[in-house]
């Protein structure tokens, strides 16, 4: 399947499938539910997608995927257009864990985990640390070799969905003497190992998706090392960028579909005085400006996917996309909050399984900092863009 006719047919197929399978009232039903109900719903939806062949389209065919990039684009566009639930819980498993295993894992590691992920094994990312922040490479968690094992001590933070996780992608320092990016190793860690203590972090939105993970003398078999010892930073860099394009495309489509539809609805809903917000030229102007930016974002993401696929993406392209998306998301949610006024403050919970836009504007506005801070804060992205994208000189005293 590669010609334009096939893509149109595929689009129609996905659209029909969505019409039949997307639970029509999932947003209402996922608002205010327990963690268990959320996990059950995520697992059921994952099973549905898997049944249709839509769960791991980006994986190699031999592992159950094999969809072309053009088809994946169509798939994500249609899931967004249908406002389908997102695979939030399985995100790390399907993307980061799979990419790590496929690109740097051993045959044994792949055979053990890839089928398990399809059966619902949940992964969490153990990269961030409290003291490191955006300076990820300054991480302090240590892994000391003892025979065939490593003994790990330290603390991880911002582990999304950590309380539900079976396995962890772990970065730890194995050579404290080496320069900071040369002494880190990459491990697969069983979350049920003794010494692993997971504590949820309550976020600004009141939810607790993220966790702290405390590691005390946790023993990891050396067979669970990914890539060479002390080359963990390089493995992480290589695998982090995988699929980032398609992930961003999906997010852009989400914002451009349900997100923008709600915004238009908010702007065109008559107030008590019968006037609609959009009847004010200032609101109309801002709405049109945001629509323009969102259209630009979607095209940007599509272009990024195409160029990544063709091996022509520039060294700062991912940063341009992330920076523009995250700040546009924040501006859009802020505007929605302003247009809906006090009412936006009365939504105390947002639907789980949702993306970054849920119609609970104030919560979504708060949540937008989950995009401007982690994964390299906006300030870091701008520096990357200037240095790698434009070739401007580094700051004389930056760490290395």
């Amino acid at each position, binding site marked *: 399947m590669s010609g334009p006719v096939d893509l149109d047919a595929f689009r129609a197929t996905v659209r029909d499938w969505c019409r039949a399978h997307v639970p029509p009232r999932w947003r209402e039903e996922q608002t205010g539910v327990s963690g268990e109900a959320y996990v059950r719903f995520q697992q059921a939806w994952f099973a549905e997608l898997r049944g249709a062949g839509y769960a791991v389209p980006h994986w190699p065919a031999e592992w159950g995927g094999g969809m072309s990039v053009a088809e994946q684009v169509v798939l994500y566009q249609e899931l967004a257009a249908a406002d389908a639930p997102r695979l939030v819980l399985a995100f790390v498993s399907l993307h980061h864990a799979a990419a790590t295993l496929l690109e740097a894992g051993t045959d044994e590691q792949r055979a053990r985990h890839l089928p398990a992920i399809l059966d619902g094994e949940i992964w969490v990312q153990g990269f961030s640390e409290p003291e490191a922040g955006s*300076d990820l490479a*300054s991480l302090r968690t240590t892994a000391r070799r003892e025979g065939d094992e490593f003994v790990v001590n330290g603390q991880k933070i911002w582990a999304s969905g950590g309380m539900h996780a079976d396995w962890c992608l772990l970065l730890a320092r194995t050579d404290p003497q080496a320069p900071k990016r040369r002494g880190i190793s990459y491990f697969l860690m069983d979350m049920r190992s003794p010494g692993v203590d997971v504590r949820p*972090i309550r976020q600004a939105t009141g939810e607790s998706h993220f966790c702290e993970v405390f590691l005390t003398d946790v023993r990891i078999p050396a067979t669970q090392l990914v890539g060479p010892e002390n080359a963990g930073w390089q493995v992480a860099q290589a695998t982090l960028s995988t699929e980032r394009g398609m992930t961003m495309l999906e997010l852009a489509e989400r914002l451009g579909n349900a997100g923008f539809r709600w915004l238009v609805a908010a702007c065109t809903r008559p107030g008590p005085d019968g006037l609609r917000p959009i009847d004010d030229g200032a609101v109309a102007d801002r709405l049109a400006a945001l629509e323009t930016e969102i259209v630009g974002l979607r095209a940007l993401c599509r272009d990024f996917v195409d160029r990544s696929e063709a091996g022509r993406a520039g060294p700062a392209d991912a940063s341009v996309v992330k920076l523009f998306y995250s700040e546009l998301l924040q501006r859009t949610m802020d505007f929605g909050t302003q247009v809906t006024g006090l009412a*936006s403050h009365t939504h105390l919970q947002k639907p789980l399984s949702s993306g970054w836009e849920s119609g609970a504007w104030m919560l979504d506005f708060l949540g937008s900092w989950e995009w401007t801070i*982690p994964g390299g804060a*906006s300030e870091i992205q701008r520096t990357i863009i200037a240095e790698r994208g434009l070739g401007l000189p580094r700051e004389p*005293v930056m760490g290395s």
Partner: protein
Amino acid sequence: MTDLAELHEDLRAVARELLAAGRPDAGVDWEELVRAGWTGMEVPEELDGAGATLAEVAVVCEELGRAAARTPYLGSVVLAVGALARTAGCAGRDELLRDVASGETGIAVALDGALSGAAGPSFRLVEGAGGLRLHGRAGFVPDVADAARLLVPAAAPDGGVVLVALDAATPGLTVTAQPVLDATRALGGLTADGVPVGDGTVWRAAGDGEAALRALLDRAALAVACDSLGVAGAMLDRTVAYVGVREQFGRAIGSFQAVKHACADMLVQITVARQLVGLAVRAVVAEDADAGAAVARAKAYAGEAAVAVAGKAMQLHGGIGYTWESGVHLFLKRAALNRSLFGSPAEHRRALAARLG
């Protein structure tokens, strides 16, 4: 420095100390606040108050914002005194003012938090068999849910605007709490469905009733603007303190230009907001004809500035700022709620533009 400015600095210092004691969202010890004299500030001396002005109350409002304090001060003091001050003298009014001064809470004014400027009253009195009856509804009324006594601005049958003093338990009145994300604010809805109103409880304004309501809405907007100014100030101070000690890439993040320049912009915004709030306070105290415009400018600018500053504070605090525990979210939520309360920046600017062309 003028005597008045010195007085305000002293008041500010005392307030900051008093409010620094508790956790921001834990609620302020009302008794301490009463002992400090904040409830009676604007109440005339003959009614056991301090006979001061809104200029002093504005300092308290700013400090409450700075502490993101949970207190019914806005509804039970600032708005209550404002409503009563423009009411023609009568025993009931004087008694109520005395109660406010002595620190009695449980008084609320039925002002709809979604309204601003020249909006008319949300309630009306209808002449019926057996006397007057009150109809209407208001949403997002500050501190109404815990109020025992209500002051309801209403359109009288003759078209004038009066103040109706009611017991919250009066049949036909429905009070509902309206939880909002900002847990430091207590807002609620009030519905009156043909509530019988006794003659002695309908109080006329000392002057024009409509003007009195307009002034009350201006007062509400200005009190919120002061609060926003305080929120913004707190966020800048916390951010400066944090970026001065937090290290990344081998240096305090406050030594990076991007962080510095963001903090500089926060300071500029706060400085301008402070000027606009100051102008509005002086205009309201002096009862300037242009006071409404000054309030609109202050509310629009300070309302937006506080959201921008608190948002940037969250950004510069990084992951820490995004935790519930850090409390930064309290300020961002309060700033965002303030921005919409008693007139959004867009609504206030619309009123300003109408004066220009």
